[in-house]
């Protein structure tokens, strides 16, 4: 066997140290808590100057339109704008930041599923759930639906994730097709899956679902009918093995 290259050994040692530190500080119970305990370790991570510079450029171009931003060092840049600034944000990313590559576009429904996880199907079935609080991911949010697009700059090697809050009463947003021609099909998918209305979209036919399909399947309140019919024994797969703790 040949030797392990040094940089990998270093990486592995770092990862190990981090894990041990996390394990040492009592049982990691809840995700946000565990993250908070990790924070002293995070200092090791170098600041992501590229993402910070990109954020500065975008802030200059968009001004107050950026409601929130988030940088995960060396992993990405998130910005959030209002629905009215959606197209402006995309063209700012394309023109000011040279993000010519259109990666994808989609939407997120932040409503907690009223059906639970549907893992422990036998317990879950037909039981009214206590409605959970709605919570958002990076850059926060205010409304149930968020639009999401990722564009990438090949020259600056930086990807920007743009999110936009959609109004609760009627989720409606401008089309991105004038900025990125490739948004067409992605928007059609978002329209049928999430029931989002897109202004000036030239072709709003369903892309996947049959023409007369009712409902919007990717919405969290759209039940997964297969799970309603037949209990799913999925949770059994992750049962503890003899001799395992936690």
């Amino acid at each position, binding site marked *: 066997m040949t030797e392990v290259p040094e940089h*990998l050994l270093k990486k592995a040692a770092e*990862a190990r140290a981090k894990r041990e530190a996390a394990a040492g500080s009592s049982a990691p119970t809840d995700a946000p808590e565990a993250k908070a305990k990790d924070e002293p370790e995070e200092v090791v991570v170098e600041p992501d100057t590229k993402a910070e510079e990109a954020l500065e450029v975008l802030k200059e171009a968009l001004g107050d339109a950026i409601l929130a931003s988030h940088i995960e060092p060396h992993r*990405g840049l998130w910005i959030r704008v209002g629905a009215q600034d959606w197209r402006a944000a995309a063209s700012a990313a394309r023109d000011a930041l040279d993000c010519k590559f259109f990666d994808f576009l989609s939407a997120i429904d932040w409503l907690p599923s009223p059906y639970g996880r549907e893992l422990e199907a036998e317990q879950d079935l037909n039981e009214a759930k206590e409605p959970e609080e709605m*919570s958002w991911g990076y850059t926060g949010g205010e409304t149930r639906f968020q639009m999401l697009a990722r564009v990438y700059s090949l020259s600056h090697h930086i990807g920007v994730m743009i999110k936009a809050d959609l109004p609760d009463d009627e989720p409606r947003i401008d089309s991105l097709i004038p900025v*990125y*021609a*490739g948004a067409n099909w992605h928007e059609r998918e978002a329209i049928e899956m999430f029931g989002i209305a897109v202004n000036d979209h030239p072709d709003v036919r369903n892309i996947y*679902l049959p023409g*007369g399909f009712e409902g919007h399947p990717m919405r969290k309140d759209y039940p997964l009918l297969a799970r309603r019919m037949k209990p799913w024994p999925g949770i059994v*797969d992750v049962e503890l093995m003899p001799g395992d703790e936690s």
Partner: protein
Amino acid sequence: MSVSEQEQLAYIAAQAADARVNLELETEDGMTLNMGPQHPATHGTLRLVAKLDGEQVVAAEPIMGYMHRGYEKLTEVRTYPQVTTLINRIDWLGSFANEVPFILAAEQLMEVEAPPRAQWIRTILFEMSRIANISLYIGDMAVQIGATTPIFFAFRDREHILNQIERVTGGRFHPNFDRIGGLKDDLPAGWIEETKAVIKKMQTFCDQMDDLVAGNEIFQARTRGIGVIPAEVALSYGLSGANLRGSGVDWDLRRDQPCGLVYDQCDWKVWTHPDGDSYSRFWVRLQETREACNIVDQLLDNIPSGPIMAKVPRIIKVPAGEAYVATENPLGEMGYYVVSKGDLTPFRVKIRSASFSNMSICPWVLKGVFVPDIIAILGSLYFILGDIDR
């Protein structure tokens, strides 16, 4: 067996939708050509409706959804380890490569890193699924043009690679071998030597195909200058992989966006072609298969020793957060945008599959071409229906 009212309604709705599509594309003085859903050039069930004026295409519209399986919805009710079983079936010719970006995204959120040996074997299997996938494409592309022999060479030689993948993972097409924190199992004894021999065979296969297909005058006449996509248009439609490099954009996620695979440990080259036509896309893929053989060959020499699994809890709960990880899959950029709320299951997974974006350029690129060129262009864009419909 009686048909329920709901099923009847669904059937009527589907018929109505079809009728509407046909009506929209009905022309006054031209004709409408329907291709598929079952057509050998579609790698699954894709339907293409083209509006013709004589031999020329005025407008073309791909119609998908015949194979939509709703994976994005299903991932929301599967635990993280169970998701890999589903996503194996997206691009069924290079299944292992589908698992890797999802696992890497989950690892990124969990702050776990696979041990070096696992990273090495992952990269090797990743590139082997690329060889298995693209070698079939090379043969298939020749069939689209009308040469039937190369596909038999492709099926014959791909079998060697599939056998090697099967020996490690137990599955020829759907390995389901990647785990959060490492791999399910180590390599079997004697595997490295056998694989080296297989790689030699694949290199011979690439040389053969270079002579037989790429160097063929008829093949060149059918593909050169057909379906030209300029770099700017390719970027705005989100084309990726060989389709982008065939348009002269020097962009490869393996080199430009490294994430947990060990491509920096070997010496290889990103191939591009400036023409942007069907031939250049084919040529880039052929060179990529060679390069993949080269990468596997080099990596096989230096597999580090050590464990293949990092220490992860048995019940995997992924901390709250969002991550997007994409890798350079055989078909192009495949990425998973995973949103976790700290639960057993992902809150939302957006699957960014390569073929969906690659095919979205179809209405643009097919405008104005002649009917026989449709097949050459569709073949060279290379899509797998499972990768479009998800």
